[in-house]
Every structure is written in structure tokens, then in C-alpha cells.
């Protein structure tokens, strides 16, 4: 089972439905015994959060900037690598969320971390930022 697909979008919050549909379609042939529907719901949510972070923070909500999502599936791993050309992002600077209802935001990075087995933020040689989200299909979360 090897599959690769790419989605190119521009930085626009109105495109988030396209992102979610891309993730859901890419995952739809994975056996329920490997990834159940609840986990796919979380993966869809977490990729959505990663792209929203790029639109809001890397691009400062500036419309029309490029974002590319590379989805890769093998027997061992499901991987979403998301590329942008905006400001780089340091997840270490994001505080742990408050769970007492006192704040409106701050859940995005936590949701991403909790939904994937491996999360990495890197800068490519060409200057692009890449957030890589991996699910281990042979015994992860």
C-alpha cells in the first residue's frame, strides 16, 4: 500500500474545507483496523489546525500565498508534510494551553501534538518551512 497525493492551495481560510476533504479522501481506503474513524477525525482536525496556523501566523492572514500539502501513505506510516514560504514557526514558544475555559485560544499546537505520533517543524534549504505530521500505522497512539 503506497500512495502519494499533493494539494496546492493559497492562504485563505475559506479553503479549509478543501484541506479537510483532501485529508479525509486520502485516508478513506485505510482499513478501519489500522486507523479507525475517530483517529481519522483527529488527523483531519490536526492537519486543519496546522494549515490555519500557517495562514494566521506564517502569512499573517495575507491572502494568496502558497501552501502545499504532501500526503504519503505506506504500510508503516501516514505522513502529511505541509510547506509554506512565510515566517518560520517555533512551537517551543507556544505555551501549554489552559483547560479551565479562561482563554479563547492556544489549543492548536496541542491538538496537533496529541493527534500524531511524530511532529517536526523544519526549514528547508530553499527557505521553505515544513511541518511534518506522522502517524505510525504499526503501533502508535
Amino acid at each position, binding site marked *: 500500500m503506497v500512495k502519494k497525493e499533493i494539494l496546492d492551495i493559497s492562504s485563505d481560510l475559506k479553503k479549509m474545507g478543501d484541506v479537510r476533504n483532501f485529508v479525509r479522501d486520502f485516508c478513506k481506503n485505510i482499513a478501519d483496523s489500522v486507523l479507525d474513524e475517530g483517529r481519522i477525525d483527529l488527523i483531519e482536525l490536526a492537519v486543519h489546525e496546522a494549515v*490555519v496556523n500557517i*495562514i494566521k501566523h506564517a502569512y499573517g492572514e495575507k491572502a494568496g500565498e502558497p501552501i502545499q500539502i504532501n500526503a504519503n501513505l505506506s504500510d508503516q506510516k501516514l505522513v502529511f508534510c505541509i510547506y509554506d514560504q512565510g515566517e518560520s514557526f517555533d512551537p517551543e514558544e507556544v505555551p501549554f494551553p489552559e483547560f479551565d475555559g479562561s482563554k479563547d485560544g492556544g489549543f492548536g499546537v496541542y491538538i496537533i501534538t496529541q493527534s500524531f505520533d511524530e511532529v517536526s517543524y523544519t526549514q528547508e534549504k530553499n527557505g521553505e518551512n515544513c511541518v511534518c505530521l506522522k502517524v505510525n500505522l504499526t503501533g502508535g497512539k
Partner: protein
Amino acid sequence: MEFGTEKIGDVIIVTLHTDVIDSDNTKEFKADISPVIGENRHVVFDMEQVKFVDSSGCGAILFCLRQLNSKKGDLKVIGVQKAVRTLFELVRMHRIIDILTTKEEAAGSF
């Protein structure tokens, strides 16, 4: 954002007519719901039609909760779909907002 309202005693049931509450529409959601939050203390969101909520959507709902709590009111939710419930549990919102089943149950819970 469109929503319908129904009163049961002093409780207002707000049926959210949207399938998504996310970063794209939370400003609109907060602006449109504010008059309802301002005029009532006991509020129930019927989320039967809401299929997807993101972290911004959670923030908008928590904003409503805080507004109500500040005047000794409260917010409950009903009709929460499975994916939305998974998110609420992940960010522990189910510990601070009661997730109930029916309008009548919610209306009697304040």
C-alpha cells in the same frame, strides 16, 4: 451565521444552523450570538447540525461560556456529533460545559 431560538421557561435553546464553526467564521459567530448571550443567562446550544469545530470554534464557545458565567449564567450543549465530542474531550471542554442529550434535559439542568 443563522440560528433559531426557542424558549423553555427561562432557558433559551439556540439551534446553530451551520455545519462548521472554525477559524473562518468564529468572528461572525461571536458577533451574531452576542445579543442572545447578552439578553439571556441560561443558554443551550443545539449543535446537531455542526459537523466540524476547530480550536477557534472551541474558543468562540468558551467566550460565550465566560460571558454567561460573568453574570452567574451558564451554557450547556446538546446534539454534539462524535467528531466534535472527540475534540471537546481532547481540550477538556466536557469538564466545564455540560454535554447533554435533549432540549428538555438541558432546560431542566440549570
